[in-house]
């Protein structure tokens, strides 16, 4: 149990839009210095959760408390808002210079020109935009704009930083550079952060805790490895990249080992289960190896099959396999070439029992 | 920086308002201000620009001259929205007196109308003595004639003349109605080389650029008679009865009549109006 202080807590949050509930979260907690990422598909309620917790979206029912103080009066909310800041998917810069943009939050708080001169350059440098200080916001690239927005949010040294899909509008190389810089800044400043995103690998890079949402509710919350390796259901499994999901039935179960029947074939996996139980087996494409040789006997599940389709995924190739049941494998181009693989080729697909994540199927 | 501009702007606004209202306050001290309703042609003659300042200086009153169409001026009297009327539509004026809306109707002055037209005079009316005869000739010739058509004093007189000439102008192709003021109607007639009836004053002030000649004048039926009347305070208690009376008294006083007598001489060589106070009522119609 995490014993660090809770910065933000919420109870019984409910938000309705036009009569339909879009958010239902019985409890939520954000701890000091934590970086939490909320993931989920579009319409899962993650932005609603973010905006509600930042006290920007009303009305809602339920209670939000900041360091134990219930935020139920206009006064309390306003004081809370002065302690936080937010970055949106659209940088939403003001029509002025980069310097003035970054200084905006400080000016709002009434800091003097000299105080601005001390702080603003430091944060411009932190995000690598000090050379753009006098540039008009209209003349920035996507990455530069978002860096400005981030600098603007962090220069006020907020207690909590909220981010709503800050990288979604950027192209991959820009995105990666910015994630890298933001991670560094967050670590240096130790800012408590709540970020919403729908690209899960970013989440891994930045956060200490992941919250998965769908349909307005929280489905799973835990550390990145916990969520990535132990999704609670097929939805989360697919979200975290376990693309191959197979229906099966437990045949045998002993000492943490399982034998599962999938489409008439037998698969060895690790886990708990009872015979006759209906299960879902989830496997990451990275964990499925493909070879022209039969590598059976090496404590792996091996199945003969055929490559039905090859997809390019940048430096990787995704292979759709048909082994009597569908499998998906991810290999490097290098490996693909070295093994002399090609579409429509007969191959052997294999994966270790430990790679199989077994989930009970609710019928 | 951020919210400082707003109070500044509001202050500027209040100052501006105060400024604009202060001059208003001076003029609108209730019992010192009179509303005079009169016609555009009276105003356009320029007589009031001399008469009124003289009155204001003597009496200390401030006169708001509202010059509108004849119909509107008399209506203002009927509704109690003016204190004194100066008009030249005898029939309509008499109605107001009968209905008790105005009191003390007094003869002030007259000027005359003339029939003007193109120099080549297609209807051959030059020198004709009786106005109604001239109009009959215009109708017979089917010559272009422009009427103001706006129920002004001028228009009312013109309509009466057509009646006595026993000419029905309804729908006649040569009879055009401009719906405009006297000056503009004259300009239109000059452009289109048509005939029209105008008061001598307006004609004289535009003569140089018009190119129209006076063809018929002097007939008593062409007289334009001005009366002043005060709006009846018994019907409309809010009128400035004292002020209205003061103004009316002034225009029929010796001083007022002198101003009327001499107006226009230096500009046009002859007077535009003829003072009539004391004369028996000169209306011929």
């Amino acid at each position, binding site marked *: 149990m995490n014993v660090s202080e809770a910065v933000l807590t919420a109870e019984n949050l409910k938000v309705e839009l036009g009569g339909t509930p879009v958010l239902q979260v019985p409890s939520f907690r954000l701890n000091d210095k934590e970086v939490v990422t909320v993931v989920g598909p579009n319409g899962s309620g993650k932005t609603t959760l973010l905006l509600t917790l930042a006290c920007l979206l009303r009305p809602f029912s339920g209670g939000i408390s900041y360091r134990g103080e219930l935020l139920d009066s206009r006064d309390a909310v306003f004081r809370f808002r002065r302690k936080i800041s*937010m970055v949106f998917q659209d940088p939403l810069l003001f029509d002025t210079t980069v310097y003035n943009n970054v200084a905006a*939050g400080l000016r709002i708080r009434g800091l003097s020109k000299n105080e601005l001169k001390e702080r603003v350059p430091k944060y411009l440098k932190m995000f690598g935009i000090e050379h753009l200080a006098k540039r008009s916001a209209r003349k920035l690239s996507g990455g530069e704009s978002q860096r400005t927005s981030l600098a603007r949010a962090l220069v006020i040294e907020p207690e909590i930083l909220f981010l709503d899909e800050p990288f979604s509008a950027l192209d991959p190389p820009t995105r990666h550079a910015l994630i890298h810089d933001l991670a560094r800044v967050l670590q240096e400043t130790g800012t408590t952060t709540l970020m919403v995103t729908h690209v899960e690998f970013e989440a891994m890079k930045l956060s200490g805790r992941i919250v998965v949402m769908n349909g307005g509710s929280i489905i799973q919350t835990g550390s990145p490895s916990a969520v990535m390796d132990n999704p609670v259901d097929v939805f989360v499994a697919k979200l975290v990249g376990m693309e191959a999901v197979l229906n099966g039935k437990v045949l045998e179960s002993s000492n943490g080992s399982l034998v599962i029947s999938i489409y008439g074939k037998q698969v060895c996996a690790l886990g708990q289960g009872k015979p006759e139980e209906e299960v879902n087996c989830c496997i990451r494409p990275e964990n499925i190896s493909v070879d022209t040789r039969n590598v059976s006997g090496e404590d792996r599940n091996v199945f003969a099959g055929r490559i039905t389709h090859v997809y390019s995924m940048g430096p990787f190739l995704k292979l759709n396999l048909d082994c009597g049941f569908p499998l998906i494998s991810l290999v490097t181009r290098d490996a693909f070439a070295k093994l002399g693989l090609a579409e429509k080729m007969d191959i052997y697909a294999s994966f270790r029992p430990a790679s199989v994540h077994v989930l009970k199927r609710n019928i | 920086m951020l919210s400082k501009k707003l109070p500044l702007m509001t202050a500027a606004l209040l100052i501006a308002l105060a400024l604009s209202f202060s*001059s208003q306050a001076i003029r609108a001290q209730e019992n010192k201000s009179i509303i005079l309703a009169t016609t555009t042609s009276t105003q356009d003659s320029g007589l009031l620009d001399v008469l009124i300042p003289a009155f204001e200086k003597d009496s200390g009153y401030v006169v*708001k001259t509202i*010059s509108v169409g004849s119909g509107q001026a008399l209506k203002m009297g009927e*509704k109690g929205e003016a204190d004194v009327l100066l008009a030249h539509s005898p029939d309509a004026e008499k109605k107001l007196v009968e209905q008790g809306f105005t009191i003390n109707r007094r003869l002030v002055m007259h000027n005359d109308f003339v029939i003007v037209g193109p120099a080549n005079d297609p209807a051959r009316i030059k020198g004709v003595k009786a106005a109604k005869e001239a109009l009959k000739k215009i109708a017979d010739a089917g010559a272009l004639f422009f009427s103001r058509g706006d129920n002004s004093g001028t228009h009312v007189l013109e309509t009466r003349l057509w009646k006595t000439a026993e000419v029905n102008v309804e729908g006649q192709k040569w009879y055009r109605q401009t719906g405009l003021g006297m*000056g503009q109607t004259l*300009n239109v007639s000059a452009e289109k080389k048509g005939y029209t009836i105008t008061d001598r004053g307006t004609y004289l002030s535009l003569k140089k650029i018009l190119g129209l000649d006076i063809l018929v004048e002097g007939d008593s039926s062409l007289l334009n008679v001005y009366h002043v009347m005060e709006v009846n305070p018994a019907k409309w208690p809010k009128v400035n009865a004292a002020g209205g009376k003061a103004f009316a008294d002034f225009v029929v006083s010796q001083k007022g009549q002198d101003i009327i007598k001499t107006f226009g001489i230096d500009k046009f060589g002859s007077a535009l109006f003829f003072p009539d106070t004391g004369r028996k009522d000169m209306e011929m119609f």
Partner: protein
Amino acid sequence: MDLILEGLLKAFHLIISLDREVLEITWLSLKVSGTATLISIVIGVSLGMIIALSTFPGKKLLIAVINTGMGLPPVVVGLFVTVFLWRNGPFGFLNLLYSPSAMIIAQVVIATPIVMGLSVAALQSLPPMLRLQILALGATRWQMVWLLSREARVPFMAAVMAGFGGVISEIGASIMVGGNIKGYSRVLTTATVMETGRGNFDMAFALSIILLLLVFVVNYLFTLLQQRERPR
């Protein structure tokens, strides 16, 4: 054609010689329409912002009404204001009819819907999340209003210019509620109509040219303000 030339010459002459009456008329035009525009800005911009930034039932209907108000015929406004202000009307006791104040009132009624409608449009043209971003930066309600206004300054200035343009050039209401009284409620537009009615076309042209010059100078200054580039 030579009428226009005569008018130009006369206008030039009147300006150079600083003709007293023309100066008086011009100054009154500026004062009346300027005050009216100022008042309509205060009412129009503030109400426009409130309407644009709030949600309430019937909002679309209200905006439609305001947009219709932008096309209010000035002469109709003049008629209504006259009936309210004349002696026997509800506000007759104020003794305002036939005065510059009455003209200001009528012009405020004409300009306010213009400024309001365009202000609503100006704010609605901003990115919808900008308001939240500003609040998330810790702004008070007033600070948010100020920052949003600054972001929409180009369309706001256009609203101001439209409001001013609508009243400096209007004649119907001004003549009805002002009375075109010499030295008191006579402005450039009413004087022009009067001179035209008298047939003094050269004078009418001269006054028109002076009016156009006045409007141009004012709008030039506004436009400079509007198009002011932020430092590169």
